[in-house]
């Protein structure tokens, strides 16, 4: 199953980035094989709408779930419209997070965890 984890670095050994819209990397990972693709996030320095664009970028990758620390209201709306399972409050290593998702350790977020502009640099 293909999911996406926000990451501070470009590989599975990196830490989960607590920000969604302005995370450093998106790691798209297959939870069965642990094959992954690291995508640098172009929205880190966006003036506004980073969460929306990141939500759209993640949706374009056809992932089933997003694992991250926090998600704002606009990003949540975009992810929800794309039918992506949103998991917040995730920390630790990217690989461990992916494995825990596969094992069913997480519960889906029912709404945004932070307000707009929280992840501004």
């Amino acid at each position, binding site marked *: 199953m293909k999911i996406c984890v926000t990451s501070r670095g470009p590989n599975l050994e990196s830490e989960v980035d607590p920000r969604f819209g302005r995370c450093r990397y998106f790691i798209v990972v297959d939870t069965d094989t642990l094959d992954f693709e690291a995508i640098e996030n172009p929205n880190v320095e*966006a003036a506004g*709408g980073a969460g*929306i664009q990141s939500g759209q970028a993640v949706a374009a990758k056809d992932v089933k779930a997003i694992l991250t620390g926090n998600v704002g209201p606009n990003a949540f709306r975009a992810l929800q419209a794309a039918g992506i399972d949103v998991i917040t409050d995730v920390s630790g290593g990217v690989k461990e997070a992916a494995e825990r998702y596969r094992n069913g350790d997480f519960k889906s977020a029912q709404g945004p965890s932070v307000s707009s502009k929280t992840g501004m640099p």
Partner: protein
Amino acid sequence: MILSIASGKGGTGKTTVATALALSLGENVQLLDCDVEEPNAHIFVTVKLYKHVRICVPVPDIDKQKCDFCGRCQEVCSFNAIAVLKDDVLVFKELCHGCGSCSFLCPRAAIGEIDKEIGCVEAGAFEAGTFEIHASQTRTLQTGGRDGLAFVHGRLNVGQAMSPPLIRAVKQHGDRTRTVIVDAPPGTSCPATEAVRGSDFCLLVTEPTPFGLHDLALAVGALKKLEIPFAVVINRSGLGDGKVDDYCQQRGIPILMRIPFKREIAMAYSEGISIVEAMPEYKAEFQKLIESIERILVATHPE
């Protein structure tokens, strides 16, 4: 003449100066309160507001029957207000600046525009009578030298972030046959820039503190870029240090007035009473301030 009152730092006394100038000039003056996020000049000039116009900006309205989710609208939106998904398009109206690019460039002509209300413009003038200053306080005024004062302000709706279109709508009422005084919002970002744009002269109100100086320097930078001549008024003079004076002196920026740091001025302000009404001797000071500005303008534009 269009004279804007700006600051950089918030709370330095823009409204104090703008309303005092309007009340000191008395005749043929128009006050435009462009601080649309928190307009309060009307409290000091006590006008009756009689005209109310809703102000809207166009936002995209997408016909999902016509849309083929090509993503062009998302691509051309500079404000990330549109997200195109596989079989859906989301519009985030609060981020939209109403530029119209998405509807203009949509290859399927699937985007129309609908009006989103962002606030209102209210206009008024002085009429003798009783004024509600706020819920628990009223003032009764028979005259006050306000007969020649026209007043316009904008009020941004709560929750709206996009004030420049509303500021433009207020400024459209500017009547160049009068002395137009623009009370600008603080800062140097879009709202403040929009308010001062097109002014013949700008007064920067600051306070002699490190904060005041820091933000004054930002405002000076913005005005230089906008090519608007300016001068400084120091409010709460006597407070802080002399660094604002040094800054102005080094750069040849005229300091046209100093308003002292006085309890009586703050108390009158807190009761919604202009400095020139609480202490009428200041009227002459503000009249002199206008004369100094006119002299500077004549010296730089002799025609």
